[in-house]
């Protein structure tokens, strides 16, 4: 089911949270809303779900304007950042909740409900936890139960608010891949909110980069990384260096997009080595350039010739690699 967001604006008091947002999400797509906190991404997600109503604009599901529809009639699955599992219900009852809330004529029998719940718990690989209470589960388990609960009512759209935000790094990586695989299998139109660019790049088909209530760029992970539409997107999608060019403005480049040399070379700028950090496969060198307070970071493979015998305080020559440059005034 496709989602169209048309001219959506939202204001909380004096604060303009969303400013004329337009976005088309194709059926079956997995889209990430990426941005720093306070950029409006969660509000946009809640507006799609119907948890928040926009001041202006409309939400269209598969050609049908659902702006006026009650949250129950949108048939949307929603996974909250802190999962919002019903704390007084067992895992089984949590997952069964949506089925039991259906009007009498549509409601499946308890046997059918049980079968469905166990099927879902099997899918999230937690069938053995059916009788536990949410407080007895780990963060990752809660997250998967929240997902099973959202999927029980067979939504056409799945929305996830910072789905991995509350998990520790290792569990987060596992669940990320698992979610991407799951999306392949069930093929729902899915939108998730995140502030972690790595997460967005790894999981999403398309990334919507947001800042201060507006969309900065929409594109495939490669696109937004390689061809950022603005300085903001460039900064947000990875580490970046800014090199001042006097009156002409500055250029931006990523730490690994650099050429280093011990001797002066054409187009290379001279810098002083401030720090050398071996980080496994690569080594990071921090450089101080004349006439600029901001330090430059360069990352090269650890066997790079320029690193041989390099000491703090040594001079080093660098040049942002061609093709990676982004000028701005």
């Amino acid at each position, binding site marked *: 089911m496709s989602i169209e967001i048309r001219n959506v604006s939202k204001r*909380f008091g004096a604060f303009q949270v969303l400013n004329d947002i337009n976005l088309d999400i194709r059926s079956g797509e997995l889209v990430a809303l990426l941005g720093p906190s306070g950029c409006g991404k*969660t509000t946009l997600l809640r507006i799609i779900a*119907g*948890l*928040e*109503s926009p001041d202006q604009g409309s939400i269209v599901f598969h050609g049908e304007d659902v702006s006026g529809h*009650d*949250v129950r009639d949108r048939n949307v699955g929603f996974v909250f*950042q802190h999962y919002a599992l019903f704390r007084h219900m067992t895992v089984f009852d949590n997952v069964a909740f949506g089925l039991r809330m259906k009007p009498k004529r549509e409601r499946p029998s308890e046997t059918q409900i049980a079968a469905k719940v166990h099927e879902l718990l099997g899918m999230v690989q937690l069938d053995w936890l059916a009788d536990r209470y949410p407080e007895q589960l780990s963060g990752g388990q809660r997250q998967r139960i929240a997902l099973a609960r959202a999927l029980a009512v067979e939504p056409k759209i799945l929305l996830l608010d910072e789905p991995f935000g509350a998990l520790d790094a290792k569990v987060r990586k596992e669940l990320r891949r698992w979610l991407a695989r799951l999306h392949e299998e069930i093929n729902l139109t899915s939108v998730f909110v995140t502030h972690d660019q790595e997460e967005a790049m790894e999981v999403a088909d398309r990334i919507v980069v947001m800042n201060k209530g507006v969309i900065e760029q929409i594109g495939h992970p490669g696109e937004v990384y390689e061809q950022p539409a603005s300085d903001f997107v460039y900064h947000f999608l990875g580490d970046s260096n800014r090199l001042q060019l006097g009156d002409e403005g500055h250029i931006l480049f990523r730490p690994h997009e650099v050429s280093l040399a011990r001797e002066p070379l054409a187009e290379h700028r001279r810098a002083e080595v401030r720090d050398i950090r071996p980080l496994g496969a690569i080594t990071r060198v921090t450089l101080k350039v004349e006439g600029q307070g901001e330090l430059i970071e360069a990352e090269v493979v650890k066997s790079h010739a320029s690193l041989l015998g390099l000491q703090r305080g040594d001079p080093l020559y660098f040049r942002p690699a061609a093709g990676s440059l982004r000028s701005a005034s």
Partner: protein
Amino acid sequence: MSRRTSPVIPGFGLTLGYTLVYLGLLVLIPLGAMFVHAAQLTWSDFWAIVSAPRVLAALKLSFGTAFVAALINGLIGTLLAWVLVRYRFSGRRIIDAMIDLPFALPTAVAGIALTALYAPSGLVGQFASDLGFKIAYTPLGITLALTFVTLPFVVRTVQPVLADIPREVEEAAACLGARPLQVFRHVLLPALLPAWLTGFALAFARGVGEYGSVIFIAGNMPMKTEILPLLIMVKLDQYDYTGATAIGVLMLVVSFVLLLLVNLLQRRIETP
């Protein structure tokens, strides 16, 4: 992240409407009626009523005993809160549970029990008699009764705050060379003071208005041991509704001014 009003949670109009109507009918309109009734008096009439010696004596007695009782509770309440939070000893749970007894026990029962205890012939009163002074039927007895009924306030406001102060803070102070009393004075006291003041104010307000537990032990001698709420009662019994209303308004106003002062004091402490 805390969210603003969510449009999917129904019932705002219904619950707010019900709340306002219920409060309005039961609390606000009746209280307002008292002020309307008092407004029929001229200032000089009002002044004549509230400046009568008997009223002033009762005013002094009510606020004075309530203040002293609140102070006593400030001390023993803090002691109890400290002991209950910081020490594990036999009987701790019983004491903790029984602290609330004065709230659960009807005040009339407390009143007659304390009177029986502190009357000159009573279990404790006879010792006082031997020493040549009286407890019941004096301001001392009133203060004791008020201390009893308001005992839980300070304990219950200080207790949770004390429990939340991390032990590390005190340990850090001790490592910096502070002695136990210095730690208490400079580290714990400032943290506890706002809660302590809240408990004090609650106890004080309750003490000023308290009726049931006091009238038995007070002796109710005009000018000597007659509290303000009793004086309202006396005026009502004489069908002097205007007099009762004037005293009621006086009581409410003085209480609110005092509570406001405590509130301001509290704010000054919290924002140095």
